């Protein structure tokens, strides 16, 4: 059902933007081909980057379910990473099938990037995957202290859908709001990847954004290291 919801979300976006482009050729600096490409790319990146098997991690920690993993000669983080990769594989496959249906329905003109841009796109997409994995691990640590993880997670996902550019491109927002969002890591999850794919990131800005993405990854890695170490000391292995 979750996948069907994603499919409906993309279908609605495509319908709304197709209607808007019937009377105009340029909306918020995007032509029809760019906007349709944006929606397809956002959907694929959602499956690749934002879909995660670790959204229930906090509950697994609080209920003590991770105990059996902690007792085995295997790194918990490697195990979770493998779970994540498997889940992403499944999601990407589903997204490709859904995109095929949407392409057949809308027969859109899609903007394709240059080889150089494709390499940057793939590197940034990998960075987004790592950043989201670190986000998910960080949310998981809530389970060391509280059983109530649903509320913070719900708010986070609402904000994530908005700030990662899933609902619409962030550059249609006012400048001050864009600047504020770029002080957070969220645009580096999927939005910047779609922009580089569409060729909307100047060459001289690529290094700056690459550094920002790397910095967020390092920061979240260190934050995770600290919180997991602290969390394990508080771990009560309940129910086990």
């Amino acid at each position, binding site marked *: 059902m979750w996948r069907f919801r994603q499919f409906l979300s993309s279908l609605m976006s495509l319908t709304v933007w197709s209607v808007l482009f019937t009377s105009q050729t340029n909306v918020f600096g995007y032509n029809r081909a760019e906007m349709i490409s944006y929606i397809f790319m956002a959907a694929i990146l959602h499956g690749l980057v934002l879909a995660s098997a670790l959204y229930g991690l906090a509950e697994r920690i609080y209920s003590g379910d991770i105990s059996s993993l902690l007792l085995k*000669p295997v790194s918990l983080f490697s195990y979770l990473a493998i779970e994540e990769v498997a889940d992403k594989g499944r999601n990407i496959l589903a997204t490709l099938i859904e995109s095929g249906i949407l392409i057949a329905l809308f027969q859109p003109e899609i903007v394709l990037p240059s080889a150089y841009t494709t390499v940057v796109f793939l590197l940034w997409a990998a960075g987004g995957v790592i950043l989201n994995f670190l986000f998910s691990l960080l949310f998981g640590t809530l389970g060391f202290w509280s059983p109530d993880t649903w509320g913070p997670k719900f708010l986070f996902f609402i904000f994530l859908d908005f700030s990662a550019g899933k609902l619409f491109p962030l550059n249609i927002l006012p400048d001050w709001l864009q600047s504020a969002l770029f002080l957070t890591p969220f645009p580096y999850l999927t939005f910047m990847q779609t922009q580089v794919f569409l060729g909307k990131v100047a060459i001289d800005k690529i290094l700056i954004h690459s550094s920002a993405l790397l910095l967020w990854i390092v920061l979240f890695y260190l934050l995770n290291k600290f919180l997991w170490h602290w969390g394990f000391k508080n771990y009560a292995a309940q129910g086990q």
Partner: protein
Amino acid sequence: MPEPVITVRNLKKHFSVYKKEPGLLGSVRSLLRREYETVAAVDDISFSIKQGEVVGFIGQNGAGKTTTLKMLAGLLYPTSGEVSVLGFNPWNRENAFQKQFSLVLGQKNQLWWDLPAMETFLLNQAIYDIPNPRFRKTLNKLVDLLDVKDSIQIQVRKLSLGQRMKCELIAALLHNPKVLFLDEPTIGLDVIMQKTLRDFISEYNKEYNATIILTSHYMDDVKELCERVIMIDHGKKIYDGLLSSIINKYARNKILSVVFAAPVSKNDLKKFGTIKHLTGSSATLLVSRKDATKIAARLLESLPVQDLNIEEAPLEAIIREVFGNRAKIA
């Protein structure tokens, strides 16, 4: 003299828990101002265990038995004190250590609920890096010993509790651990299944010279498997020694079970001891432990005895006696 495999020195685990008054008002109050209380789940426990020993951990619910086992397995971080298992600090969770022990928790399982147990066994083979010939040999042996050949290909959720527990033990023993922590391994099982598991644990101990710590509320488990027991109450160790010593010290009575050739009266019997049960020609008497043999001899002389048995009082009763006398033995 073998070196200790497990050494525990002044081990403590304190939990900080908050107290909440019942009802909506209590919930609102707890949001604004919380009162915390420190609970000493394990309070300054020390002991050592040699290779091959099977030690029973005895205590009431919440005494600190499982918390101690979780610290020995490296799941919980101690508040203070030292733990060494096979020369490792469990908290460091080194692979070399984790390949040599197993923790079996009777009320939780490591088996994949929606898959056959065999899938978990194969996953464990990969995780513990067990060579295929050794894996097959151990698996076949454990499957035969526990008689679960027909169960390992069936979804775990469809197995009975007894079958699940047997598969759970197999998953825990595939890598031939040298140290085994068993927390209530027979809980919820019927008496026949309990006996099967006890025999299996005893066999495993003998064959692999494995060191085993066992917690159980079933005293038959402790009586059959453990020569030595450690008793814990409110996080503190109150006894560490031979099970037989504590029985000799605290069992004040023995039980005489008698079958007579003809019915006897209550009056005839009551001079020998306290009558616990009398129906027609069979009776159970509670007699002083030190005089049990003499009383049995007098009974044989005075009444038409057909059969007579002298039994120890149930271990449960003795343990109750020990906990009742906690202040005296602490």
